[in-house]
């Protein structure tokens, strides 16, 4: 039987979209959080990190309650004639929610590592907060943010439990590679399972290696020890 290749595209599209969403939200929440102290934001931190600790099936079940026909968000969306459950957006939502903590943690750590004096120096030079962020904080935190992006992408690509709960396994629509593997094994189709597994390994390796290589090209100063020894005159 010829292999239906749609899970590859669904997996890639889902992971890329989910990673883009977590990147924007991860940075936004990390900035919001950076200037706040107290029990409220700390509790919210716990909520943000919950998907990392909970089993993906629990996350998927909670999302199902939220987006289902009787869930608060599901009803709201139904108002506009949209249903999320068992659709492609559901795979994106599941992947984004599950990979968000990795992105958020990485971005936060990367932004916190930027020397506060540099941001203050930029402010005394008349820079607006947006300019301070775009020209100083973001470029200096970029390697850390990129590492978080790689992690989040890998997590999204491997997402299984929450996706199955919220999006099901509809071939050509919501069936991603991990789900295709699961159903191939369940159907005792080991050849197909092995094929999908190899494809998955190949994609993951290629994406992560490519991303690191690209980071290196973008920012050759990253391995500092090498640069330092070069500049010794």
């Amino acid at each position, binding site marked *: 039987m010829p292999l239906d290749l749609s899970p590859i595209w669904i997996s890639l599209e889902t992971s890329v979209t989910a990673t883009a969403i977590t990147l924007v939200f991860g940075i936004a929440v990390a900035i919001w959080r950076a200037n706040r102290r107290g029990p409220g934001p700390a509790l919210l931190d716990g909520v943000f990190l919950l998907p990392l600790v909970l089993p993906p099936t629990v996350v998927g079940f909670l999302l199902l309650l939220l987006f289902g026909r009787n869930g608060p968000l599901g009803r709201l969306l139904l108002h506009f004639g949209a249903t999320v459950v068992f659709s492609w957006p559901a795979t994106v939502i599941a992947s984004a929610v599950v990979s968000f903590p990795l992105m958020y943690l990485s971005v936060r750590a990367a932004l916190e590592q930027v020397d506060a004096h540099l941001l203050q120096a930029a402010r005394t030079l*008349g820079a607006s907060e947006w300019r301070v962020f775009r020209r100083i904080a973001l470029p200096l935190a970029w390697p850390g943010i990129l590492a978080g992006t790689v992690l989040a992408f890998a997590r999204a690509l491997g997402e299984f439990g929450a996706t199955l709960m919220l999006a099901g396994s509809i071939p050509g629509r919501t069936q991603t590679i991990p789900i295709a593997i699961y159903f191939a094994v369940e159907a005792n189709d080991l050849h197909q399972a092995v094929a999908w597994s190899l494809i998955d390994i190949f994609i993951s390796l290629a994406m992560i290696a490519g991303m690191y290589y690209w980071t290196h090209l973008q920012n050759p100063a990253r391995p500092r020890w090498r640069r330092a020894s070069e500049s010794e005159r």
Partner: protein
Amino acid sequence: MALEVQFEKHLAAYNLNVEFSCDADSLAVLGPSGAGKSMTLRCIAGLERPDRGRIALNDRVLFDSSKKIDLPSRARRIGLLFQNYALFPHLTVAENISFGLDALPPAERAARAKQRIAQARLAGLENRSPRELSGGEQQRVALARALAVEPEALLLDEPLSALDTHLRSQIERQLIDSLAAFRRPALFVTHNMEEAYRIATNLVVLTKGRVAAHGPKDEIFRHPPNLEVALLTGLKNFSRAKQISADTVEALDWNCTLRVSQPISPAPAYVGIRAHYVDFLEAASCVSSSANVFPCWLVRASETPFGITLYLRLHNPPGATGEHHLQAELFKEKWLRMREHPQPWHVQLSAESLMVLPE
């Protein structure tokens, strides 16, 4: 043209409570570490918010707690030179210097940056990364970057402390020239009293968050208002004192009576003399006729390349404890002559050099 500062800020260790002003003559803020010097600069630059008070620059109110005015740093037009220079490591020298000029059209921006680079004698280094520069070059970039936006006042936080000693005097010279050319209020923080004296015209002495002295530097070095300020300005010799008559005090720790020329009021708590002003009489003839002359013995000496510090004991030879009363600084030649003479030597604490310090 002036920067007027008056504010209070509660800190963990003490209350920072300062009041001073700075005109176009440069002002040094001198104090031991932890006295609140850097915090004072940060409050003026708008990086920290005081609890109460008012900060104004050329009739522009930057901060006023009673009127709820608190301009953000970017709107204060105050340049700040950080102790570690805070150069943007991902930008080149030229990009660092033109960072604050983004509101200008590109051509003018480039022209201004070029002019600053030339003035700071950084030509040829435009495309270097900050970490490829020497400490002195880094400092020049930081100063050029701060001056490029033409601030109305300049704050410098220990600008020389990150440099090697052999570079310091040269870079200090350049800094003095830059400040002289700036001709706007410049505030310079240091814990080094000689540096403060060399660089600034006026002085604020800060101790534990309070202004202990504020005025022209000569005035403060010559007549420190109290012992704390005297010590911070380098006083090495002091003794508890009691008034005897209109122009004499008893130095309790030195066991002698001293004539002084400074008016003794309020009641003196200490009498002191700077180590450079401790004088030695070489001709024995004038010993009996001069005032404030005492026999002294050498306890120990500490040599520097061109001078020597002598630790002396008054009235009688040092015992086993080796305690000294006075510390004297003199040039090598004088020392070479003096040591030919047998001890005791005769030390003169001239009335004009003695400081009378209230509690």
